[in-house]
Each structure stands twice: as structure tokens, then as C-alpha cells.
């Protein structure tokens, strides 16, 4: 069930250039399920900024009633969020959307997890849950440059992890798609989250295999009421059928929606 709760900051730190890791505690964690779901945060009490900010869930710890998210502090809202300190509260609406379908891979199969930039965080909990299920995981994580890289160790503990940077300042130089080809990575199912051009390229190259993509779209309500976040469906003879990224997604099967 979706809840709104003032959750308490238990940990908040900078983990890379402009990148923050925030852990929050509260009852809402008990409602969290599949990785890939997100929360909608109100970063200020007043009207500026007015709207909530969608941020993916990166790790879930139900025992401690804590979850972690990782975000890039860039615009007005995320910069305000980055000022929160331990014991402050954050107004959280969630969990929202449908996450990655863990059931689509079986124990013993291989899952390839491909993340781009700030699309990397939701893959961490996904990887953990897949490993717990007996799935073999491989990761290709793309970043712009050296000091933007984060979570490498955490992913490396779970399975093979290839880091790519656009400028070659760390790891493999080039796009995630090239790294997959060069390393001749084999997989049964691919899960991916990142910028739309990256998702498009992956869909084009690997769409014939089971492939699940997590999309980003500008949001108003985050719950399906405002129709801000709609996209066309893949099979749409009338031009009027749609999916809402917030409530039907953000994770879709390749081909389900037009990227």
C-alpha cells in the first residue's frame, strides 16, 4: 500500500561528485517490494519547490525499517535535500510504481544488469535479490567520468562488474553497449536503468531477449492521477493507448512502450 510518512534520516553522505546516499527509517519500508520502485519526496515544507521529487529505492532493509536512495544533487530540489542531516525528517510518499520482475529469471540463469549514471542505484537491490534467489548476476555500469563512479565495490561483491566511463578516465572507455559486445557477455535476461538514449540502444541491440527497462519521465503526482508521465505503447493502432510511467512503470518490458 502507498503511504505518506515523515521518515527519519539515519545516514546521509556524499559518495561521489554531486552524488549523495540517503538512508531513511520508518514504517513505510515494510510496504516496499520489488527493486525499481521509487519514492516521491517533498524536500521543503513550503511551496518552493512545490512538487515532489521521484527518486528510486536503492536498498531495502526491512529488519531495520530502513531504505537507501542515491541521488544527484543538481537542481533546486535535490540541492535542498542534500542539506538534510541525521535526525531530520523527510516527507516520503511511496512506495510507488512497479519494480523489476524478479520472477522473470530462474535460479541458475544469468542476469545482466546495465546501469547508466544515476540509473545505477536501483540495480543494487535488484542484484541482491537476484543473488539471493540463486541467479548469476553480471553488471555493466556506465558513468561519465572517474569521479562520478559509485557503488563499484558493492556490485563487485555480488557478481562480475564492468565499469565504463565516457572519457575513459576509469575502467572501460566507451558506451555500455560496446562493453557488452567487447566482453562478449552472455545472459538470459537483461535489466536496465539509465538515460533514454542508452535504453534505446540496448533495446535495439538486445530487444529480442527478455529485457526490462526502467524509464524516467517528468512527474506531477507520481500516483497516476495527473497524466503528466504518459508514453505511447508499442502496439498502438489508434494512437490513443498509453502507459503511465509512475503507476504502470517505471519498469517496462522491451517493446511495451515507445522510448
Amino acid at each position, binding site marked *: *500500500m502507498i503511504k*505518506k510518512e515523515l521518515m527519519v534520516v539515519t545516514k546521509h553522505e556524499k559518495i561521489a561528485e554531486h552524488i549523495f546516499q540517503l538512508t531513511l527509517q520508518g514504517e513505510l519500508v515494510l510496504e516496499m517490494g520489488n527493486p525499481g520502485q521509487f519514492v516521491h519526496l517533498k524536500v521543503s515544507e513550503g*511551496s518552493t519547490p512545490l512538487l515532489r521529487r521521484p527518486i528510486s529505492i536503492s536498498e531495502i532493509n526491512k529488519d531495520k525499517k530502513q531504505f537507501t536512495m542515491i541521488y544527484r544533487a543538481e537542481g533546486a530540489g535535490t540541492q535542498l535535500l542534500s542539506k538534510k542531516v541525521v535526525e531530520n525528517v523527510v516527507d516520503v510518499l511511496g512506495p510507488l510504481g512497479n519494480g523489476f520482475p524478479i520472477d522473470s529469471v530462474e535460479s541458475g540463469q544469468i542476469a545482466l544488469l546495465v546501469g547508466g549514471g544515476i540509473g545505477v542505484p536501483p540495480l543494487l537491490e535488484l542484484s541482491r535479490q537476484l543473488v539471493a534467489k540463486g541467479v548469476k548476476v553480471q553488471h555493466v555500469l556506465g558513468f561519465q567520468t572517474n569521479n562520478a563512479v559509485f557503488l563499484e565495490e558493492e556490485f563487485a561483491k555480488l557478481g562480475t562488474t564492468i565499469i565504463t566511463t565516457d572519457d575513459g578516465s576509469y575502467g572501460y572507455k566507451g558506451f555500455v553497449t560496446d562493453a557488452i559486445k567487447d566482453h562478449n557477455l552472455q545472459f538470459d535476461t537483461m535489466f536496465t536503468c539509465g538515460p533514454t538514449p542508452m535504453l534505446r540502444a540496448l533495446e535495439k541491440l538486445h530487444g529480442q531477449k527478455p529485457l526490462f527497462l526502467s524509464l524516467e*519521465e517528468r512527474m*506531477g*503526482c507520481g500516483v497516476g*492521477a495527473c*497524466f503528466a508521465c504518459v508514453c505511447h505503447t508499442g502496439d498502438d493502432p489508434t494512437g490513443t493507448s*498509453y502507459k503511465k510511467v509512475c503507476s504502470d512503470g517505471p519498469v517496462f518490458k522491451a517493446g511495451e512502450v515507445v522510448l
Partner: protein
Amino acid sequence: MLDINLPGLSLKNPIMPASGCFGFGREYSKFYDLSQLGSIMIKASTQEPRFGNPTPRVAETEAGMLNAIGLQNPGVHKVISEELAWLEQYDVPIIANVAGSQIEDYVYVAEKISQANNVHALELNISCPNVKTGGIAFGTIPEVAAQLTKAVKEVSAVPVYVKLSPNVANIVEMAKAIEDAGADGLTMINTLIGMRLGLKTGKPVIANKTGGLSGPAIKPVAIRMIYEVSQAVSIPIIGMGGVQNVDDVIEFLYAGASAVAVGTANFVNPFVCPEIIEQLPARLNELGFEHVTECIGRSWKADAKTAHYSS
């Protein structure tokens, strides 16, 4: 203390979600019992299904947001057979928002939707462009708005409220023309046309270029317009525009609104409507009112009294 009677609408309280900010209620029904609401102004229905505008369709502004959703809806027939039928499980009278691009579209939708069991009133969205007069919004020319109102009144099985657009030079003239054409009530205000440009791109941040501004930023405009119009017409007004809390509601009533709709605030706090409904009696008590109707038009009623005594 909160009940109020308006044409077609016998409301348990004067609070309702504004059209386009609540879908057809399904999403918010997961948060609370919709029967608590005074009414629900459902999302605009058009004759044919509409996908709406390309994304991004929303952008944030200082204390507000721009939207150019583009009236996405499944078409009036599906709205009746699926959405309104679903809403029948709740004890709440529905106000159906009607849109179109020419008079015939409105007439078609109004005739059909006004016959649904739970639709107790229509709200005409006259901010849509009139194709026949070359894409100018119905709501910007009093004669055109009056013509539309008359045509819809003829076919509607329930009272007709017309939703005024604030994007006009003379809102009172518009309101009077619509009242004279036979409207049973007014709802106001719709969004203000606005634009934002991206710093890096130099280009409009929403795909449609312009969008409708809503949220707390537009509240003073709404209050001013309701204050002016409510003194000039004798049909009731449902007020909206930036309402966020119980005090905003009282300010709208003071300005001359008889009921109040909450729009953008639902996105920020999904519980805003039931919270306001719960807080309203205590706030009215604190301010010395026994019934919510005593607040209506207090701003200008008080002015009138002062003027009388001083003359």
C-alpha cells in the same frame, strides 16, 4: 455546519478536487474513502478518446507548476461506462468537466454525460480552442462563450456551470455574458497561460511550449477575480486556484465562492482534501462562524456595510 446547496448539488461539505487533478478518482481512492468529499470534478471528457500533448507536459515554477496535458481522456463513452460506473460505489455527486474544439463536440458530450446517474452538474471547460473561430479559446470572447453555454443548456439533463479562464482582460464581462446565457453557476479559475525556458537549451521546457500555470502562485489572481465576479452576478461560484489548506478555503469563501476546489495541492499531498474537510469546522468556530455559508462573500459584504454606515 459544512453542508451547502448549489444548483443540482446538495453537498455534505464545500470541498472537492478540481478537474484534471484527480483523474477519475481511482488513484486517490487508495488513500481514503471518496465519499468524504463534497463532490468530485472529474477529468475533462471529450467526444473521442485523446492522447494529449507530447511530453514533457509539466514543469515546475515558483510556488506553482505549468501543465500542458492536452485533455488526455478515454472519450465520453468510456468515461460513462467505465469511470462513472465505477464511481457509483461512492456516495458523492459528480461534476463532469466537458471539453471540445467546437460547439457540436460540447453538445454531444454534455447530452450523453449529463444522463449518467451520478453526474449532478456539468462544468464546461471553455479554455479549449474553438476551431471554427480560428483557434481562439471559447473563454476569451463573451459572445462565443454565451453561444456555447446556451447550446449546452438546451441538451443538458443537469445544471450547467461554466469554468472561466483567467486569460481575459475583463472577467466580469465574460461572467455576465455567461450568466445571461443561462448558466446555473460559474467555476473559476482555470490555469493562467505561462511559459518557462531552460537555461542550458534556451528553449521552452515543456514540449507544447506554453502551459497552464496552477498552484499557490495563482491564488491572488483567483481571489481577485472571484471577488469581482461574485459581486456582479447572482449565480453561485465554485472557486479554485492555488488552494492548499483550510485557511485558503476560507479566503476563497470570503471572496465570494460558495464552494472550493483543490487542484495541484493533491499532487503534493494526496490527503489534502480530507485533511481540509476535517479541519474546517474548528477553523470556522475559531473565526466565529456557525455555518460555512456565513463566510460567503464576507469581503464585499463587509465593505457594503462599512459604506452604508459612513454615508
